[in-house]
């Protein structure tokens, strides 16, 4: 993406001169304070919102017009965003249903994905019978079931408690390691972004701008013990400082 800008109809500039290149198989975190336009940026990447300036080009799929075929992008919202009237199976099946592709292969794929996020045995449950963490797992399964080239997550774990959040962080890492989908993960947690990503884009607020683009050079696969290591702490400190500096520059 080149020179992406977004201006709301009120004239408020949400994003300004955003340049962002995504490498295939990367796990990129977009880190920034609340209200910096992270979600807007993610929606532009998904094609759910149009930039007011600049161009968005996705070369992940062979498609010149920048149009992403349905199923090419998976999106996980801040809330699980499930259909409360449908069972876990039907919720995860939704992308296939909308593509009018519901066969036995798709149904098998759905079961497999539900197992992959650790919800085997809950196929027939309704969302209200599940805990917050389990609902988020359903949401992740739905996003992954089409084997998307690009997985976008918008602060998916922000509403969860610390313990569930840590568990889901690990699960997301396993899912990503197993298939190497390109991931863009929006968060306001420094620790989460360092633990998960291969790269972190630090954003500032109003208008949202990318202040720094930092690689995360930590060994893979990542295990929980990494959270205690000095290398992890050092990168967290660097990212934290970058974020603080960017915000200080902004306020001057």
């Amino acid at each position, binding site marked *: 993406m080149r020179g992406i800008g977004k201006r709301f109809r009120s004239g408020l500039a949400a994003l300004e001169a955003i340049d962002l290149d995504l490498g295939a198989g990367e796990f990129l975190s977009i880190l920034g304070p609340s209200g910096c336009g992270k979600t807007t940026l993610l929606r532009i990447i998904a094609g*759910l919102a149009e930039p007011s300036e600049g161009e968005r080009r996705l070369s992940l799929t062979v498609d010149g017009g920048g149009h992403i075929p*349905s199923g090419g992008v998976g*999106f996980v919202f801040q*809330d699980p*965003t499930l259909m*409360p*009237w*449908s069972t876990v199976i039907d919720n995860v099946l939704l992308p296939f249903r*909308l593509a009018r592709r519901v066969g036995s292969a798709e149904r098998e794929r759905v079961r497999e994905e539900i197992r992959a996020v650790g919800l085997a045995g809950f196929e027939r449950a*309704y969302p209200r019978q599940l805990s917050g963490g389990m609902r988020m797992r359903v949401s992740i399964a739905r996003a992954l079931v089409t084997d998307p080239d690009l997985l976008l997550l918008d602060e998916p774990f922000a509403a969860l408690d610390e313990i569930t959040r840590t568990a889901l962080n690990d699960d997301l890492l396993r899912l990503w390691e197993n298939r190497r989908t390109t991931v863009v993960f929006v968060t306001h947690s420094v620790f989460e972004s360092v633990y998960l990503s291969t790269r972190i884009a630090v954003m500032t607020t109003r208008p949202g701008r990318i202040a720094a683009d930092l690689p995360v050079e930590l060994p893979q696969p990542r295990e929980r013990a990494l959270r205690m290591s000095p290398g992890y702490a050092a990168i967290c400190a660097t990212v934290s400082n970058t974020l603080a500096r960017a915000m200080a520059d902004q306020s001057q």
Partner: protein
Amino acid sequence: MNPGRFARPWRIASPLAVGAVLLVLWEAVVRVEHIPPYILPGPLAIGESLWTDGPSLLGSLLVTLRVTLAALAAAAIFGGAIAVLFSLSRILELSLFPYAVILQVTPIVAIAPLIIIWVREPFLALLVCAWIVAFFPVVANTTVGLNSADRNLLALFRLYGASRGQVLRYLKLPTALPYFLAGLRISGGLALIGAVVAEFVAGTGGTETGLAFRILEAGYRLVIPRLFAALFLLSLTGIVIYLVLDALSRALLRHWHESALEEDEG
């Protein structure tokens, strides 16, 4: 005080006890004061009338019930269809919704004579009157429901390239179902009221006489116990319609909607 904290037997027994006490008081007052039955009959006299006039009153009830249920079905089908049309076309909603409101706020008693003149077939005339009273809650509620789909789910549907038909079928209609059912519960009572009002205006109107006309007739002839008996049957019918619609609503929503959750779950 939270009513859910009382055991189920109490919730049935206590209103019944209040009813029984009131009936005894009523009977006592009528007897002690020697109130003549053409002014106020006691519950025993009404019960007796219910027993003797019961079969013929039930026949009339069936006539009224047919109008009511047909009007309710028409309200559900056409009310729902109008709401879906509104949700598909904003311009249609903007241009037609005010007229639905006008139809709703105009007293049915005032327009019923016109409808009865215009529509020759008596059953159909009554049906149209009852429908006019009953359809609005379904239209208004379902329209709100169709417009309340979760914004993120809408975005997700767009992301997966859903057609308008798919959005309607898989997202908007299920979202609107609880609203539609709430509207239908209100319409159930209104359909009965509409049918009764139309019968009042129409008179016998044909070979069959509904319960409302029996009430009028009993009033003219000062057979007040029968009037009360007919009134009792009407109220009972209204309650049964409500309970049936409530049960239907719970059955359809029991897996997912807050309104239908059991109290001990959460």
